[in-house]
């Protein structure tokens, strides 16, 4: 059973056991505009919560994507290197950024559920 959580920085997390798949929200991709480049963390990198983990660039600007929780990077979405525009077409699906092994599940407590995130972006 997958649980969806959101950060105030417009990342989504799909929680499956102690693994989180992380991406940016549909709201975030709309704000960014056409995505032309994505830089992903290296597999095996130990990320601290709130640390810059990835970069997403539109024609206009570069934006950091922060680690929503502390943990080790298990896998990254290599499809984004070849097709950054996936972030615009399927931000909350095929355009996931990385998977992280959650070090401390208590960190999830500070995240939003879908209803809270909708209110946050309203």
């Amino acid at each position, binding site marked *: 059973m997958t649980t969806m959580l959101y950060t105030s920085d417009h990342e989504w997390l799909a929680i499956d056991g102690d693994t989180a798949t992380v991406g940016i929200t549909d709201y975030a991709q709309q704000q960014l*505009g*056409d995505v*032309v*480049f994505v*830089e992903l963390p290296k597999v095996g990198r130990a990320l601290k919560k709130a640390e810059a983990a990835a*970069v997403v*660039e*539109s*024609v*206009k*600007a*570069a934006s950091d994507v922060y680690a929503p929780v502390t943990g080790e990077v298990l896998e990254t979405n290599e499809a984004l*290197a070849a097709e950054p525009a996936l972030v615009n077409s399927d931000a909350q699906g095929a355009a996931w950024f990385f998977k992280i092994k959650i070090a401390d599940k208590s960190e999830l407590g500070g995240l939003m559920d879908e209803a809270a995130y909708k209110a946050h972006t309203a």
Partner: protein
Amino acid sequence: MLAHHQDSLKRTPLHSLHVSLGGKMVPFAGYDMPVQYPAGVLKEHLHTRAAAGLFDVSHMGQIALRPKSGKVEDAARALERLVPQDIVAIAPGRQRYAQFTNADGGILDDLMVANFGDHLFLVVNAACKEQDEAHLRANLSDDCLIDSLADRALVALQGPKAEAVLAKLCAEAPSMTFMDAGPHEVAGIKCFVSRSGYTGEDGFEISVPASDAERLARMLLDNPDVLPIGLGARDSLRLEAGLCLYGHDIDTATTPVEAALEWSVQKSRRAGGARAGGFPGAGKILAHFDGGASRRRVGLRAEGRAPVREGAPLFADSAGGEPVGKVTSGGFGPSLSAPVAMGYVPVNLSALGTKLFAEVRGQRLPLAVAAMPFVKNTYKR
């Protein structure tokens, strides 16, 4: 606070049109301007290169320089005291690119100067227009009336379909060639039309009375070949065209020679010319023409896909050493589907093909000095 901030922003005569078209409005040079429309920067950019785009550039300053003597050459001679260009040689109905220089040879602003027969018509940058006007008044008031044309809007129609689109509203448009400029009626409205722009594409810039601006813009947008284009695509288009953005690629610390704008300084104003020197900073600028410049603006193409943006330091080697220069404009070039940038490097590292490195997020990314424009321009000569 936010509301107050937005209230303090100026609006162009096309502001309500931008809002009704779904423009995403941002502050730019004191104006509330559309950075993009619902199509987005990428599509707006590509549409301009494939068909035609309409830009609101009404935030720019339009100034008439009227000679007190009634002879336009007197206004031209007067303006030559402030710019290193040959203004006297601009024929009636023609336009030329120029720069206001300072005593150190730096650039105060860049501008377009057109000869309208009995006066000169200037278009200057939005962020510099008050300062430019004051500069003109302080230096040219004995010879000229400096007339700020604040009641006019300015739109640019750019792209391969621009001529066909404008021809429907202005029969003379197709007979104009690159840098022709003068009064023309467009849809019966008294406009100033020039065949020029800031995208590298063929196209026109149309100065229109503010009260007629929205009506004219809507007529142009009624043509299915025309999309409204925001400031985001304006920037990526001019970057691909290798054109300088004032305050970024050129400023008071760069001379026209360092900025690789020698082509814009005619022989008559250089050493040995009929009216050599006689503009602010002439000593330094002419010395730079004589091999005295130590750095130069160059085009840069990255090997990888990561955009290299303004401010990125440039290095000669993949590790260690001090920066040799920096990127002044950079981003993703939608027509090339690759990063493009420009920046300043030492003259000995400015040859085409020279390998350099830009530091982005702590990594040295390889790039090479490349010819500009990055995308071939399509001016109608």
